[in-house]
């Protein structure tokens, strides 16, 4: 009883004054001194009083690293995969180390990968994009052709439909990287798909645009063909040739990929080779036998394209224990919605009994990732950390229980339920579910 009450008691109230914060922080700092931090009654810190090698000799010259990787001390901030998930690594997935990142743009080199037939090497010279089907004049473009169309820069998140899929029936993997890491957020430079379709001509369709589809397929062995409603194609899709300012990485579809903002990552066809305007959906493997959501009664939802609003606290989290003891603590995380901008993120430290509005680092951007912070004075007691996103439509991220009540436990895809981290008194966290 006492235990439960304590869980339900916030470690700090919502009315938290800046002055109080600073005072509490100073006190905590004195008590929980980290390694190497000098205190008044200790020996001076040799890192300060002694001349260090890096302050004496040379570092690397400008020719040492023509294209850089993160410094070796960050070598644990990498994509990871889960061996038992799939039969092999060719048709598989890995996870973005979201627990260790900050800001909103995902560094390209650790942005998750999902391939159905491996990441292929396709040279720009060998690249062709065909547009055919119900167009006025079927066309073939080279990569150089694409570079001559007016292009735009837009930032979007890409989330795999299966992100958090392992967590449907309960807490399973211990780390935000594994539970919510099938996501990345990049700035794309690309040609509006509308521009290319209009280049091939869709005048023959007249006002029948609503009934038509675009079948997009890749050049790899899997082809990963997906049918996209023509309306969506004409609305905000991009044919991207750059991400985060540079050429797409091989694993993200070099040299050209499709960007389908807000919709499940599987539709963002990589190594895009063909766009066919059609009368009907192809009903390909990836839109029938996969990426469909089976409900408790055995009936499955299809065409569940939109990724609903979702968020997760990335730190503290199981891979990011609190090491500094009580006192000032930055709780941070990410939020996104396929239906618009994030307008608000609430954070609970007591398992959803009470919520505080977190601070968005920047105003939410349509179908892009937002970063949130909640700065608290941690009293050192255990917490049940949750975050809850609200998007521009007014949709509020539901609990897993609320989703399961509608969909059952076999849904596999589109789990956007609230995540709970049980932060223990020693600062370590664990993936748990709590009563609702």
């Amino acid at each position, binding site marked *: 009883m006492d235990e439960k009450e304590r869980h*339900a008691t916030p470690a700090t109230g919502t009315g938290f004054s800046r002055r109080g914060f600073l005072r509490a922080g100073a006190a905590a700092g004195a008590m929980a001194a980290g390694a190497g931090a000098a205190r008044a009654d200790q020996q001076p810190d040799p890192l300060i009083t002694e001349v260090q090698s890096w302050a004496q000799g040379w570092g690397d010259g400008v020719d040492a690293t023509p294209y850089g990787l993160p410094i070796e001390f960050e070598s644990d901030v*990498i*994509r*990871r*995969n*889960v*061996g038992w*998930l*799939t*039969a*092999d*690594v*060719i048709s598989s997935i*890995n996870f973005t180390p979201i627990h260790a990142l900050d800001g909103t743009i995902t560094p390209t080199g650790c942005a998750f990968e999902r391939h*159905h*037939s491996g990441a292929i090497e396709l040279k720009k010279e060998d690249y062709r994009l*065909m*547009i*055919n*089907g119900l167009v006025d004049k*079927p066309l073939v*473009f080279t990569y150089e052709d694409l570079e*001559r169309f007016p292009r735009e820069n837009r930032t979007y998140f890409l989330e795999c439909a299966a992100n958090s*899929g392992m967590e*449907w*029936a*309960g*807490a*399973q993997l211990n*780390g935000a990287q594994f539970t919510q890491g*099938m996501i990345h957020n990049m700035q794309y430079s690309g040609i509006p798909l509308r521009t290319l379709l209009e280049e091939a001509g869709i*005048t023959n369709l007249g006002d029948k*645009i609503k009934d038509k589809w675009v079948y997009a397929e890749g050049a790899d062995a*899997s082809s990963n063909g997906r049918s996209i409603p023509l309306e969506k194609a004409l609305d905000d899709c991009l044919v991207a040739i750059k991400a985060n300012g540079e050429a797409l990485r091989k694993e993200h579809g070099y040299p050209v990929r499709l960007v389908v903002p807000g919709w499940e990552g599987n539709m963002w066809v990589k190594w895009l080779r*063909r766009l066919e305007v059609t009368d*009907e959906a192809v*009903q390909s*493997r990836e839109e*029938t*036998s*996969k990426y469909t959501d089976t409900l408790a*009664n*055995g009936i*499955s*939802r299809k065409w*569940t*394209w939109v990724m609903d609003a979702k968020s997760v606290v990335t730190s503290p989290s199981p891979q990011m224990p609190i090491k500094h003891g009580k006192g000032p603590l930055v709780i941070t995380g990410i939020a996104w919605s396929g239906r618009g901008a994030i307008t608000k993120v609430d954070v609970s430290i*007591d398992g*959803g*009994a009470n*919520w505080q509005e977190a601070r968005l680092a920047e105003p939410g951007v349509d179908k892009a990732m937002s970063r949130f912070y909640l700065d608290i004075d941690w009293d050192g007691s255990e917490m049940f950390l949750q975050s809850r996103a609200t998007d521009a*439509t007014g949709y*509020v991220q*539901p609990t897993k229980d*609320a989703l399961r009540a509608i969909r059952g*436990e076999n849904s*596999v895809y589109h789990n956007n339920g609230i995540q709970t981290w049980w932060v223990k008194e020693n600062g370590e966290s664990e*993936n*748990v579910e*709590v009563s609702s």
Partner: protein
Amino acid sequence: MSKCRRNLTLAALLAAPLLATPAMAETYNLGRPALPAEMKAWTVEVFPDGKNLPEGSGSVSDGESLFADKCAACHGDFAEGVDNWPKLAGGADTLARKDPVKTVGSYFPYLSTVWDYAHRSMPFGDAQTLTVDETYAIVAYILYSNDLVEDDFVLSKENFLDVKMPNADGFIVDDRPTTEYPLFSKAACMTDCKKDVHITMKATVLNVTPDQEGGEDSAAADTPADAPADTVVATAASEGASAEAMAQDAPAAAEETAAAAPAATQETLDADPALVAAGEKVFKKCKACHQVGDGAKNKVGPVLNGLIGRQAGTVDGFKYSKSMKQHGEDGLVWNEETVQAYLADPKGYIPKNKMSFAGLKKADDVKAVLAYIESQGG
């Protein structure tokens, strides 16, 4: 010139709303016309109504041998699935129970999807090699494995649409806008939202999170037997299912798989650590099917312990193709040269062998991967 066009477009834009006037959209005269032969080569997807399905046919019995040769290594002789590879048969009436088994018979709503995917993307690692008739035959065999047709059935373009798929009516279009969005769009509770907060489930009970000490490979540790195939989603994690999810392959005793191998000969490749490291990377392409090292056992492909110096087709307990066995009996012994030749063109070097792998074209890759295999006891 382009200025004129722009003005025209602008006038059109002013005259009517954008969506209604795709006719007036600006064009750039980029690209070139797609040629009929090019469109034919790439427009191969098959629609549910049979559109784009080529003329042809194939029987269950032809399909059975083709399947054994080209598909069974991953999907099993009876399409039941090997390890985590997709099960293509079975699973009838399981969709509404815990952990449904989704196969062609139990789940696929359209037969066109099966034909399309097999023809376009299979066999895994050797896509787009099945002929039209072979595809019909393999699809016929998959139907037979699901008890949907008799053993004398011949599938063709003509009777394709007559096949009834059991789960054809098992899908509805996304209904979240009516079933979920109204429910989840109410003002959120901020205080005293619930009385009782206690833990109902913990991830550590399952202990299936990858070890994170090293790089990506350290994650590929344990293999629960029943994780669904080719989805990125594990078995349900509730208490009831946890034992199943945790079930590991019995720890493979490092049997004397290397017994037949002569002790490392002359100068071995594995002496070069850089080569071994490069080989470890190349081996990623192999390890979906082959294991090597302590505790290795036969998977989709035979163990590679003791590979060098071994007669082809002789690993105990592995079910080889007839042709691989025959080559061994005819004197094929694996060494750098023969492995090189085999991997350069697996189906050409040993026709009708089971390995569905396109091969390693670069000699350096073969050398590296052999160095790695040797370093692991191969």
